[in-house]
């Protein structure tokens, strides 16, 4: 018998202090509607890296179908059919425009807002970022309108770049002209936000949970069993994989906490932040995967490290600060080090994208239903250039466009033109944003 009954998309597995959202399951599509095939939602994310990129190692010397990729992009080679490279996009509002020094502050604050920020350390003002415009509309359908994540502890006040407030260099998303949304850095805090029931655990409850080393999955065992009995074999396997991935995240967080307690009790980091960059990146992106998979949110911004950061990369034998290195004055040894940092970032990103691709959703993969932009607010960090910004889109925006290409637009083409096109794909139609002059055609049906 064919029925029109389906598992609600917003089903949660509940337990004490826990609410675990579910991934997109076949059982969520009514049998009658199966012929019409409900499509999974489109999600978008921005992954921002600071201090520009060595563009000689980023830009291929050709346009069109992607073939061999330059050195920094090499980690993306197995995924080149899933990425689109865009050339010559510009953020004019990141330039000085009479405001003098402070390119790091400006480029980060204008990256998603398309607005030149006010040069100040007190009464900050930028613009509403486009991810928040999307979140305001699309976010009504998810538990979290958007997630703002990061990996580097950074202050929100004071002067971080030649008279620009730290609020400019350390945030990507802006809820209003004057309200940035500081990123969550601590994997534990993010985990509890994603899978808690909205109430923070009391210190006692957390201590009890830690003492018995219980997984949140233990609290939802009853709900899980009940649900499994209603699912077909494919959905059961999907659910099992999904819950295993949550358990794996938990295990990594616990490991980070144990390691931190042993390795460096005095470090200036929240308790659950892994000391290792790659480990931290993986944890955060694993949770981003789960958040997308279970439709907890459709909008994520991820500030890998803050703009102008002088973070060192001892993991890859680079003890020098990232930012000072980028002012390399064409010295080959310094250029080489920045290239290695850029490549290291891409390696982490590629691993995440590969994971997103491995997760089945609807007729394709989770990645197919996403637009994940990897980029920076500066191209040449040595000269502080705001044009030809490194821009990579992973995914197909709901199988809507065909990746595997490099498209180079004319010089001075506003980055905001891409944002308008992305908003269209997210179902949010806006005529003008920032300094846009039209819509990029890259996301048009291929």
């Amino acid at each position, binding site marked *: 018998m064919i029925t029109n009954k389906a598992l609600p998309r917003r089903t949660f597995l509940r337990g004490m202090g826990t609410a675990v959202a579910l991934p997109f399951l076949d059982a969520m599509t009514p049998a009658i509607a199966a012929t019409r095939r409900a499509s999974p939602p489109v999600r978008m994310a921005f992954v921002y890296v600071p201090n520009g990129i060595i563009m000689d190692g980023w830009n291929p010397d050709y346009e069109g179908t992607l073939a061999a990729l330059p050195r920094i992009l090499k980690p993306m080679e197995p995924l080149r059919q899933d990425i689109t490279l865009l*050339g010559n996009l510009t953020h004019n509002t990141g*330039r000085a425009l*009479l405001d003098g020094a402070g390119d790091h502050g400006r480029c980060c604050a204008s990256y998603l807002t398309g607005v030149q920020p006010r040069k100040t350390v007190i009464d900050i003002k930028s613009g509403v970022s486009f991810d928040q415009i999307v979140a305001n509309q699309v976010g009504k359908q998810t538990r979290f309108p958007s997630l703002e994540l990061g990996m580097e502890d950074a202050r929100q006040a004071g002067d971080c770049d030649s008279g620009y407030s730290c609020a400019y260099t350390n945030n990507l998303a802006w809820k209003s002209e004057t309200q940035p949304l500081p990123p969550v850095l601590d994997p534990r805090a993010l985990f509890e936000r994603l899978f808690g029931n909205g109430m923070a655990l009391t210190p006692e409850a957390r201590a009890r949970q830690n003492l018995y080393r219980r997984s949140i999955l233990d609290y939802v065992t009853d709900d899980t069993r009940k649900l499994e009995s209603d699912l077909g074999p494919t959905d059961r396997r999907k659910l099992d994989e999904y819950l295993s991935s949550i358990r794996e995240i938990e295990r990594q967080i616990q490991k980070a906490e144990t390691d931190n307690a042993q390795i460096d009790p005095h470090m200036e980091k929240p308790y659950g932040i892994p000391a290792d960059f790659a480990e931290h990146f993986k944890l955060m992106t694993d949770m981003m995967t789960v958040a997308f998979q279970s439709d907890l949110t459709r909008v994520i911004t991820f500030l890998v490290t803050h703009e102008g950061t002088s973070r060192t990369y001892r993991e890859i034998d680079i003890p020098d600060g990232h930012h000072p290195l980028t*002012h390399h004055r064409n010295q080959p040894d310094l250029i080489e080090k920045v290239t290695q940092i850029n490549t290291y970032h891409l390696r982490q990103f590629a691993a995440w994208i590969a994971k997103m691709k491995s997760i089945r959703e609807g007729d394709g993969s989770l990645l197919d239903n996403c637009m994940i932009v990897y980029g920076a607010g500066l191209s040449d960090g040595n000269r502080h250039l705001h044009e030809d910004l490194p821009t990579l889109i992973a995914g197909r925006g709901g199988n809507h466009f065909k990746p595997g290409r490099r498209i180079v637009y004319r010089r*001075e*083409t*506003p980055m905001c033109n891409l944002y308008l096109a992305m908003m269209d794909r997210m179902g949010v139609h806006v005529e003008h944003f920032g300094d846009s002059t039209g819509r990029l055609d890259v996301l048009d049906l291929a």
Partner: protein
Amino acid sequence: MQFPAIAKPPVGIVFDSAMDRIDDVIALAMLHGFEGKEQARIAAVSISRPDLEAARFCDALRIFYSSAITGPAAMFMHAPAVGLADGKPGGGVPMLDVAETNKSAIKSVIDTADPATLIRNSLMAYHDQNAAVVLSGPATNLAKLLDMYDAKELVKRKVRLLCMTEIGLDGDPAAARVVRAGWPGPIATVDRQVGESLPFPGASLDKDFAWATAHPMVDAYRVYRPMPYDAPSWAMAAVLYAVRPKEKYFQLSDGKVLLDPAQKENIIRAYIDLASAKPVPRKPRKPPDDKKDDKKAEKKDEKNAEKKDQKQ
């Protein structure tokens, strides 16, 4: 306590032309001359014909005038985009096909910019009422500029004068009507007669440009028409008026820039002086100044390390 006055930066000039007459080429050389004298800055150069050679020529001329810039200043030098109209390329203009053009970094249309976007972006970098637009060719690009979101407001704020040439407007009468009707600031139009009455002397090439072994403007001049000839100067008059409106080179009546016979010699001398000005080494541009922030970060790292040592 008194502080030294900050000098007002020179006026920024947007130069929009079809780059199909020799006076366009000389006018652009004059603008580089003004830039060397720090009396004007070239805010943007845009072309109203879809001719890649024209863009390459403008870029080559910029490279020629930048040749005196060496050392750290050269390292931080950045090639600005040239605006080029969209469309199917028409017939070429032989004068633009000179050997120096090969030095241009422009290889295809993606190396150029949409003119309206370029002009909009560049105007944003100028103080209010400290920019002027010289329109030597058809008004096609400026009509598109006025059609952009918020552009009229920007133009009103930034641009003190639009100086057009009457002869250039003939190329796109509809766009000319749009610009005349919608330009939100003062307009002056160089009368046809001005260009013909103030010819640039061809004889000056051998005399005043002798210092240059290969000058793109000179090469273009020699190709434009069989030598010897004197060139009409519509675009040059517009540039001169836009940069030095107070010099009384011309008479102004009802928005028209007219010939003042008493100034003829002065004007021609100014044309020659500016167009034949040698490339000037500019003051080294300060590299991006973030050293302070790096030092702060280093200090913080040191402090943390000390703290850690103490605890251990």
